[in-house]
């Protein structure tokens, strides 16, 4: 058992990376594996700085391939283990992440997006949205929470561990370099004080007791001989995934009820959208926000309802429409027209959105 550092409500002024380390500790995480890459380094720095007090463990591996597989190793041994990465690190960790999908391993990973493709910038982007949801050779049996600030980082990092261990799908906290590096006030708390109980971990390998007597053997396959054998397994995963999606999918609406122009955005961009919507409403323009919190799986029903109510949609992202592609597939058949405001690897400000919406209105929607 690790020592939890946050025993009562504690307001702190932290960077997002620091928040994630504290959140993992509050979630009773026992081990972090990682390899340095900006802008997520301070997650492991903070985690390590806290080790003398928490009694948890840390291993810096030789690269992200190893960090991903080591995390799987820790989880198989029954530890509440996690990792964090960004950018090209997220790319080369996909092999391990696919394995976690295939073997239904409760893999937890924080992704702090930076600019892409390749090395690009170390600062910020939303360009790992598709990669985090659908990377690897597989079908994207993953759960991805997209956060919009420090309170979200704390809340959803704790939640990610429970989601992963309950449903046994790899679970991600998808944030970005702004959230990782920026400082703002946040309320840390003991999850128990919010009625949150951590799902117990279990050993997949080297479990106690004698095989065949006390327990069944663990049979976790990553390799299949026959095509149909594979499909049978994946079909059953799909059934589990669809069932899980109803429980897990989260979204947030802001002034969306009567919105004529509905902004669809995720993560930190959704936060800029809120600023823009307040300004637009003051100017008499009925704008609202639909923000998927789980961007995989998407909450399809409320999404389609919100889109149906609106007269015009605006997709905005710090990427070239990675979320928009996923959303458009889910709203197929609806005829609400849409515009886009995509800034690849660059922050979207409230002003950007205000101007874009004003132009849409001017052009007569």
């Amino acid at each position: 058992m690790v020592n939890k550092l946050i025993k009562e409500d504690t307001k702190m002024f932290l960077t997002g990376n620091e928040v994630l380390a504290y959140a993992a500790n509050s979630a009773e995480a026992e081990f972090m594996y990682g390899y340095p890459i900006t802008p997520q380094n301070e997650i492991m720095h903070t985690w390590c700085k806290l080790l003398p007090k928490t009694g948890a463990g840390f291993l810096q591996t030789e690269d992200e391939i190893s960090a991903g597989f080591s995390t799987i190793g820790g989880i198989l041994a029954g530890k509440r283990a996690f990792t964090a990465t960004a950018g090209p690190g997220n790319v080369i960790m996909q092999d391990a992440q696919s394995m976690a999908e295939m073997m239904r391993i409760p893999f937890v990973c924080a992704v702090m997006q930076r600019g892409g493709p390749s090395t690009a910038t170390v600062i910020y982007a939303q360009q790992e949205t598709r990669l985090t949801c659908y990377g690897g050779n597989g079908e994207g049996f993953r759960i991805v929470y997209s956060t919009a600030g420090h309170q979200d980082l704390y809340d959803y990092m704790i939640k990610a561990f429970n989601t992963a261990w309950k449903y046994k799908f790899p679970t991600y906290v998808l944030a970005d370099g702004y959230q990782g590096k920026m400082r703002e006030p946040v309320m840390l708390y003991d999850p128990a004080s919010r009625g949150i109980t951590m799902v117990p971990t279990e050993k997949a390998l080297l479990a106690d007791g004698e095989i065949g007597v006390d327990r069944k053997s663990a049979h976790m396959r990553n390799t299949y001989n026959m095509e149909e054998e594979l499909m049978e397994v994946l079909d059953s995963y799909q059934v589990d995934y669809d069932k899980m999606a109803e429980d897990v999918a989260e979204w947030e609406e802001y002034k969306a009820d009567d919105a004529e122009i509905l902004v669809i955005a995720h993560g930190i961009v959704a936060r800029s959208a809120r600023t823009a919507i307040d300004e637009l409403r003051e100017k008499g323009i009925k704008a609202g926000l639909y923000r998927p919190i789980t961007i995989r799986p998407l909450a399809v029903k409320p999404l389609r309802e919100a889109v149906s109510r609106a007269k015009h949609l605006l997709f905005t992202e710090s990427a070239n429409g990675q979320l928009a592609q996923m959303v458009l597939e889910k709203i197929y058949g609806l005829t609400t027209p849409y515009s886009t405001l995509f800034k690849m690897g660059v922050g979207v400000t409230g002003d950007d959105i205000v101007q874009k919406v004003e132009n849409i209105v001017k052009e007569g929607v």
Partner: protein
Amino acid sequence: MARTKIVLAGEGGQGVQSIAKILVEAGYEANKEVLYIPNFGVEQRGGVSIAFCQIADERIGEPRYSKGDIIIMLSDRAIDRCETYVDKNSTVVYDTSVCTKKPTCECKEIIGIDANKIANEQLSARVFNIIILGVLLEATHVLELSDIKNAMELALGKKFDAKPELRELNYKALEMGMSLVAQKAGV
């Protein structure tokens, strides 16, 4: 809602991020809503380093903004990079003893100060950034001098205790920075 948006830009190594940290820490300790994003490339030294700071009375929405209320430019490259954050309501401060040109943007006011020269000739090159912190404090009027001093204690207290004259030097730099703006504002 009262919200002050600050863009602080200079060369890597000038201490831009250090003073941004002190500034927002002071805001946090004074029970303001604050949000700070550091922004720089992969260089250890050189390159433009920008700090986006917001201090507000209510919860802050957008983390990044298009236009700042105060834009501080501490090098030629910072001028080039940051004119985009200026509009007619902005106050621009630049260092005449570092920059070889003057910002040409349309704005409320452009204030030229020679903080680098003053630091080198009258105080110490090491407190250049603290002079800038004083400039910011006077130009924004959202925090008290005592808030900044408290935050400096949190950031530099150990160094000050080891060498008390450093505290005096930093305070002097802070006051110098404040007076630079106060003088200009009076003209």
